[in-house]
């Protein structure tokens, strides 16, 4: 690649004007070359200065009142302390699945009380899910019950990780950097090396085509990439994603990639570096 080609790639990438293949080339360059990464950051800053060239226009003065009133109706989440609501969807799913599974299992009279400690619940559900497929169901489809059981197990495990990460003494928070493909989306990664786990919180990610999802890649010190999870955000572009990693291969970088409908990787949307 000539210096001109390299410069064109980085400048075009900062402007968000590259085709997908060129954007992937640019992303690879930025990831593999520290100097290119610095150049790209500088071009990003420069690109956003272009916005300052617009002639100034004033909005309707009543807009100020509307914005401030709307804000007053939505108290700042930081004033309320920890926003536990972001974990409610997972908790709600787990609770609903607990009820469904308990009901299904009770039909077969094979498992007694599921209202035991949370740590025991996952094992019970796993066992029940394995047994359900051999039972002659009358009111619950066996396959559906098994699927619910597996989902329940996953939800519970995720919740346990969430709780463990939140309670960890070595909690780290990384504000993720955005690329032009994020289109205003952003995110944070909260992780605990001690727990070998983390939670990715993303907001406002752009919608994906049907069948596509976001992939979360974790890169360790030896530049080995591991696909840690995939997710489809809500209609608002928000998601809470639990990630687990090998304690022997503590990640040093994280990438959120928009995958294409065929499963191939699209552009990097968010990325962050962890200081372990």
């Amino acid at each position, binding site marked *: 690649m000539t210096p001109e080609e390299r*410069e*064109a790639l980085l400048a075009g990438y900062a*402007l968000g004007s590259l*085709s997908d293949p060129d954007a992937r080339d640019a992303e690879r360059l930025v990831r593999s070359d520290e100097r290119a990464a610095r*150049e790209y950051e500088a071009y990003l*800053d420069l690109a*956003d200065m272009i916005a300052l060239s617009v002639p100034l226009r*004033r909005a309707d003065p009543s807009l100020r009142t509307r914005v401030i009133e709307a804000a007053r109706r939505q108290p700042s989440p930081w004033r309320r302390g920890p926003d536990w609501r972001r974990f409610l969807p997972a908790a709600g799913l787990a609770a609903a699945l607990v009820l469904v599974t308990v009901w299904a299992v009770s039909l077969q009279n094979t498992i007694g009380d599921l209202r035991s400690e949370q740590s025991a619940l996952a094992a019970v559900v796993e066992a029940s899910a394995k047994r359900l497929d051999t039972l002659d169901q009358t009111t619950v489809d066996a396959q559906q019950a098994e699927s619910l059981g597996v989902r329940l197990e996953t939800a519970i495990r995720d919740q346990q990780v969430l709780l463990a990460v939140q309670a960890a003494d070595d909690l780290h928070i990384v504000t993720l950097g955005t690329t032009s493909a994020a*289109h205003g989306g952003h995110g944070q990664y909260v992780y605990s090396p001690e727990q070998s786990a983390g939670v990715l919180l993303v907001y406002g990610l752009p919608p994906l085509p049907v069948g596509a999802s976001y992939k979360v890649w974790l890169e360790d010190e030896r530049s080995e990439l591991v696909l840690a999870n995939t997710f489809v955000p809500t209609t608002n572009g928000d998601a809470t994603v639990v990630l687990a990693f090998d304690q022997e291969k503590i990640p040093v970088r994280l990438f959120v990639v928009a995958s294409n409908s065929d499963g191939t990787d699209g552009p990097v949307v968010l990325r962050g570096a962890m200081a372990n």
Partner: protein
Amino acid sequence: MDDAELMEALGRGEIQALERLYDRYSALVFSVSLRVLHDAQLAEDVVQEVFLRLWRQPASFDPGRGRFISWLMSVTRNRALDELRRVSRRNRSEDQEEDESNPLDGVASADRMDDPALGAELREQREAVRAAMTRLPPEQRRAIELAYFSGLTQAEISDVTGDPLGTVKTRIRLGMRKLRDALDEFVNIDLGDRRDEGTDEP
């Protein structure tokens, strides 16, 4: 209070901080949105969304990662482009006739006086950026503006302008380089060796 201090105050839930940020930057956010969308109503929607996002998620701005104004412009542009794409899809699907009315009708210009709320530093930056953009050869400026404000890819710009893709790439590269040279006092630019100046057109 500077921008970072106001964002910290937002984190403490102080609505006055949002009011001050709005007074300082709303004209700029609105103007950028209007430049992208060419529709005052849609631009106002973007303004509301951007400032409510500041309110709801003040921690999404990290002072360690750059200047507030760059981040705010990035958020504004991206939200406006998202809206532009959404509206474009809808218009295509409904096969609507193009609105021939002037999108800026009824929108008050604040440009002659600029905006005192922006502060001297930002006014100086604006003047420098506008001067630098004006000094660009028209075809380079147009290519950059189509990329930045219309969200077009280089291939799409090539389709719009009728110029070969390679020419579009060169124009963007040279235009960005000239902007970089003109604005390096305002941007934290660390681009290493600048001796390879290249040619002006293919």
